[in-house]
């Protein structure tokens, strides 16, 4: 599919410019929309200062030139989100779109044409086309609204909201043997809610079959989903292999050598939407095999340390991703794929649970949080990862020590690495790892699609001493205690809307089914029946939202997206947030991916007492 021609008709530009100035927040109020995310607004302002890098309005981790080759990808993904469009009445869409467009225009003063184009590059396609045909009748439209006595608002019905929220939910219960579950993990719930189209987050969960333990991870991609996809497929194999004892590795190698059936290494727990790419499996397998062959040769005879294994696996995989892109592949599709993987990026937050030993390896700004139930029944949160971004002073410090002092000022700009990248550690993103020469060589020898992509060709500013980015994780080890009830792994889409304390409380109350709603007592107050009734109805609504969800992650997303200022799920708000067209969705939220792992306190207690 080709890039749509830049042809904003003069009429449109004219109505854009004659509208009076309104602040975006007020505008949101007019539209009955929540206030856009701060970062999204920042993105607008920041990006438009730099004419070269007009940015899509989402919380993109990375700023992308507008005429990017990503467009075809996005267009391919259109069917997924379009199911939302019929839900929105046409006028509403045009109202939202036109006003948003106008809003940017005013904010950014000078860039109207560019921006309008940026936003409406789908316009001539599919549904939007219809909206744009009556080019000059915006005023009619406005007038029509004026005449309408009661402006009809569109809301998703609760079942529609639920079907959107639950589309990606997945639950796994650790099976019991003889009526007993001896694993310290009871099971997990996971879910994701896209804001990008296609979603750039990935998730994985698997049980190690040759060693004990369970692996769970969330991966937040940027500049496309290719890298996140590859990491979600491959990382656990690398970790599992790193953990395997020497004999098992030998056994596996011999089996491969003699063409025998391979011992299964992982048992995956996947939602049907969590796909594996078939085409690359051979390539991925070969890289993995090379890895374990090296491990066999390196046989140190020592027992594998989980922490080391995690670090090695992360680094090795990133290395393999980089190498595969450099070497290329004779198959043109695969060649393009490995390049896309390498040029896009992904953060990873992976938990390994084995008995009471919980390891969390984190690269980037996803986060792992432990939910702890205090003796009084209340919930508190313990962080099990550090964000690798500009807010983490240690991380800023680390980056600075790794590069000459001359670069100190250009290293972190506007809270981004080299002014571009939000996470300070990531898989892929070879633009921040390879030397300029290597990048140029690969891009030039690469397929045409790659050459068409302005982003890949673009070298970050002040790029002097690569690599600037690493995939090495920080690993935190935690010994589980009976009061540790659950672990939440989530991408930053969750954490930027909710405080971890609220997350702990909401999940905790959901899992225990107990609501720490203070019982109402009339006491000496003067309360009328009507007042009491109103109060009780409100409380009931609050409780009922819990029972709609069978999945803790879904419940959390419902809160993350639908919480009003009082901390309760507001259906109206939820409905609006979910019915935003994909282009706007990114303004208001990021992709959210959540895994909630529930621990088995009895087993953990038994471990502690040395019974297991």
């Amino acid at each position, binding site marked *: 599919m080709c890039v749509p021609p830049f042809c904003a008709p003069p009429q449109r530009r004219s109505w854009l410019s004659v509208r009076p100035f309104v602040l975006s927040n007020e505008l949101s109020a007019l539209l009955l929309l929540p206030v856009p995310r701060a970062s999204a607004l920042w993105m607008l302002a920041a990006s438009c200062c730099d004419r070269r890098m007009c940015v899509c309005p989402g919380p993109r981790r990375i700023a992308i030139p507008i005429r990017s080759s990503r467009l075809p990808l996005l267009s391919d993904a259109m069917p997924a989100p379009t199911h939302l469009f019929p839900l929105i009445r046409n006028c509403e869409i045009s109202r939202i779109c036109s006003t948003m467009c106008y809003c940017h225009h005013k904010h950014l003063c000078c860039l109207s044409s560019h921006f309008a184009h940026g936003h409406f590059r789908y316009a001539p396609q599919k549904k939007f086309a219809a909206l744009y045909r009556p080019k000059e009748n915006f005023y009619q439209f406005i007038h029509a609204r004026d005449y309408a006595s009661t402006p009809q608002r569109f809301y998703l019905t609760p079942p529609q909201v639920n079907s959107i929220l639950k589309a990606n939910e997945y639950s796994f219960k650790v099976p019991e043997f003889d009526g007993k579950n001896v694993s310290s993990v009871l099971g997990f719930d996971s879910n994701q809610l896209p804001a990008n189209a296609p979603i750039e987050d990935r998730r994985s969960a698997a049980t190690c079959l040759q060693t004990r333990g369970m692996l769970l991870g969330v991966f937040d991609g940027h500049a496309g989903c290719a890298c996140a996809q590859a990491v979600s497929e491959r990382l656990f194999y690398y970790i599992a292999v790193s953990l395997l004892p020497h004999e098992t590795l030998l056994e596996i190698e011999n089996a491969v050598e003699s063409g025998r059936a391979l011992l299964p290494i992982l048992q995956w727990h996947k939602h049907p939407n969590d796909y594996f790419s078939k085409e690359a499996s051979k390539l991925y397998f070969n890289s993995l095999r090379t890895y374990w062959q090296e491990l066999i040769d390196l046989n140190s005879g020592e027992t594998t340390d989980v922490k080391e294994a995690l670090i090695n696996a992360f680094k090795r995989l990133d290395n393999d991703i980089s190498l595969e892109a450099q070497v290329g592949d004779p198959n043109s599709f695969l060649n393009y794929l490995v390049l896309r993987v390498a040029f896009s990026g992904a953060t990873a937050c992976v938990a390994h649970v084995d008995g009471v030993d919980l390891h969390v390896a984190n690269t980037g700004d996803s986060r792992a949080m432990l939910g702890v139930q205090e003796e009084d029944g209340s919930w508190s949160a313990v962080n099990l990862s550090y964000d690798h971004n500009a807010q983490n002073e240690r991380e800023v410090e680390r980056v600075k020590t790794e590069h000459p002092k001359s670069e100190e000022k250009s290293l972190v700009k506007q809270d981004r690495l080299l002014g571009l990248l939000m996470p300070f550690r990531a898989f892929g993103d070879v633009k921040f790892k390879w030397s300029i020469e290597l990048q140029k060589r690969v891009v030039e020898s690469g397929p045409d699609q790659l050459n068409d992509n302005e982003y890949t060709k673009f070298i970050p500013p002040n790029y002097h001493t690569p690599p600037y980015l690493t995939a090495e994780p920080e690993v935190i080890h935690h010994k589980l205690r009976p009061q540790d009830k659950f672990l939440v792994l989530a991408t930053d889409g969750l954490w930027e809307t909710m405080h971890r304390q609220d997350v702990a409380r909401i999940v905790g109350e959901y899992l225990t089914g107990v609501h720490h709603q203070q*019982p109402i007592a009339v006491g000496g107050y003067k309360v009328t029946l009507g007042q009491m009734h109103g109060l*009780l109805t409100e409380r*009931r609504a609050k409780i009922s939202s819990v029972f709609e969800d069978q999945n803790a992650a879904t419940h959390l997303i419902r809160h993350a997206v639908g919480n009003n200022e009082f901390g309760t799920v507001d259906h109206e708000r939820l409905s609006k947030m979910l019915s935003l067209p994909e282009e706007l969705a990114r303004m208001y939220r990021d992709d959210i991916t959540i895994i909630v792992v529930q621990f088995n306190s009895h087993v953990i207690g038994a471990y502690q007492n040395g019974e297991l």
Partner: protein
Amino acid sequence: MFLRLLADVRWRGADPKWRSAARCRSASGTAETQPVPLPAEARVVICGGGITGTSVAYHLAKLGWKDVVLLEQGRLAAGTTRFCAGIVSTARPVSIELKMADYSNKLYQQLEQETGVQTGYVKTGSVSLAQTQDRLISLKRIASSLNVSGIPCEIISPKQVAQLHPLINIHDLVGAMYVPEDALVLSANVSLALATAASRNGVQIHERTSVSHVSVQKGRVTGVETDRGHIKCQYFVNCAGQWAYELGHSGEEPVNIPLHACEHFYLLTHPLKDPLANNVPTVVDPDGRIYIRNWQGGILSGGFEKNPKPLFTEGRNQLEIHNLQEDWDHFEPLLSSLLRRMPNLEALQIMQLVNCPESFTPDMRCIMGESPTVRGYFVLAGMNSAGISYGGGAGKYLAEWMVNGYPSENVWPLDLKRFGTLQSSRTFLRHRVMEVMPLICDLKVPRWDFQTGRQLRTSPLYDRLDAQGARWMEKHGFERVKYFVPPGKDLLDLDQSKTFYKPDWFDIVGSEVKCCKEAVCVIDMSSFTKFEISSTGDQALQSLQYLFSNDLDVPVGHVVHTGMLNENGGYENDCSIARLSKRSFFMISPTDQQVHCWAWLKNHLPEDSNLTIEDVTWKYTALNLIGPRAVDVLSELSYAPMTPEHFPSFFCKEMSVGYANGIRVMSITHTGEPGFMLYIPIEYALHVYNEVMNMGQKYGIRNAGYYALRSLRIEKFFAFWGQDLDAFTTPMECGREFQVKLEKGMEFVGQEALLEQKQNGVYKRFTMFILEDHDTDMDLWPWWGEPIFRNGRYVGKTTSSAYSYTLERHVCLGFVQHFDEKTGEELVVTTDFINQGEYEIDIAGQRFQAKAKLYPFSSLFAQRRRKDEVELSGYQRE
């Protein structure tokens, strides 16, 4: 607590003499002052000083038993009695409950005058609202029943409701029932008044004395152990309310009192701006699950929510009744319902939400009577939140029971012996009461089955029958088949199937009945209570001859149908007894007789080690083969001739069926149809069932259920114990003289009473009514308890009814009495009196013409049978 203070003031104002000791105590405020010592001995010890305990004491004293001690662990009327809403309502669907409530109402009305204690009795009347037509029907049924009991009552329109109560929103009402004589009382004061009167009559009352357990020797109460010493006594009365279950289980010999407490909430408000008048009627809105009464110018409103909160399941714990928390979130649906009914109350200020636990029983009826295991141990508890309404009447019946040996009314529906140990599981009780409490407000339609606490006792064929579409009901914990839904046919959901009209299973049961009439059906009747009585010598025969009215000295292999009567000639049990050998008998009684009959036999059989009685209910699976082809099936399976010449009716033989030996085959069907009962040792049950079904295939065999059985037996005018027969019905009154052998050569229980009846005639007569102008499809169906009118005058009530598929008419069974037109005195009922009347049956206020008959349509059925026999012989010739 406001109520409490109020009550205290008046309590002291009354100044009864038994109070003085307690007063000393409270005045000094220390435990040092010696309370009045307990007596060492008393005739009766009552445990519990609530409404039931004081009522029993009051009535015992009235009946002349003055050596009575009442013990209360806390203070009098301090439990549920103090907290309850104080509504006296006579609108009760069960006749005995209605009578108790009516008596209570009359008792409370004159109590203040009698005792001087202010009871706060106000005759406000009550209005029961109907939001749906079905609800109105159920109210009309109650109204018919109230009217014939002499309680004024009328069905009124929504507009009249608005006139009666200024606040009610009537827009969603279809009608209402107004009972003008219903009243409000201060419940605690009523209890105190009863205590005052009792103590004046000599009853000793001791507060702050708790009973730890009851001493039992040789199955009799001998004394009571308290925290203040031992009291020797002959009778103990457990009126401990929600603690009754636990108290019953505290002794060495447990007495099972199946009840369980649930939290119950009601709301108190400050007075309205224009305070409600004192006599504004109490409003009951069952569809909204609430009741609303006037309370000091404001309102008191509570209800029975759909999701009750059971409590005290683990027994009595630290959570005291006074410390229960208000739970507004739980009350929310009831509050919504209240504001919907009375929208003007929105601005009314809340005073308090009271949490008043109430105890509930597994079948929504209260528990009274003597323990089946311990003689002299009486119980009155489990009031299902109607303690004030029932308290007076229930106390009276129990006192009569203790003094006279039997109450003056048939209280079998409330008898403790309707339960056994199988209802004693805490889990069962907890689950069941969660169903029972909402049921108080639910629509009570005919043929309702409980949904919880099921599948406890089942036949070995349960799964097999279930797979063939069986729909189940429960009796005494035993699952019994109602009917079989043919494959591919769906019935309505549980909720939708609630109807007062023609039910959805009508055609299904019809085809089962047809099959019973024309071919052969199998009904699993394993739930029947089965006893074996045997002895080394003649003892079994001798004692049974004494206990039963029919002559049991029959040749071995004969089955005798007989009543087990009480001194008044009334049926304590109605059973079939097979003489297995010279010295052993096999006795079959109704399912719910298991506890009662066992207790009766234990109490009446002589203590003789040579005489053994065994409950073999669990040992046998019973299959009833009904129909003209049953004989063919059995003879093919046993290679034995089963024709009437070889196997006459009322005959019993152990024989083999299929491969299985030792099957007791009896030529009775409990329906009047030809056929056999098979009593099969349970390990053979599946085998015999399979054989019967396989062999029966060519005779068109099919499964059938109890609804078919019921239709068959009612059209044949067969009375069933527990439904038609009770302890107040004699064989003479139901046309069963032939089952009584007055000249059998020896005395038997009830003989004198029957002789007298034979000479003087009976005062009621069991009669069969065929509804004449009743449209089965369009009209309300009769159930039981419908008033019978003869020449426009009330003469009695129906006891059971069914649609007869043979007559294509509804048949009702019931008793006809003869009241003198002027004095109302009961007169002898003669055959002429029955035959010379024009009858009508009142179904929910609508009267249907009925034809009365004293004998079944023998000719109609006899012809049919002869025809069958012809076919039968024809087949055999082939």
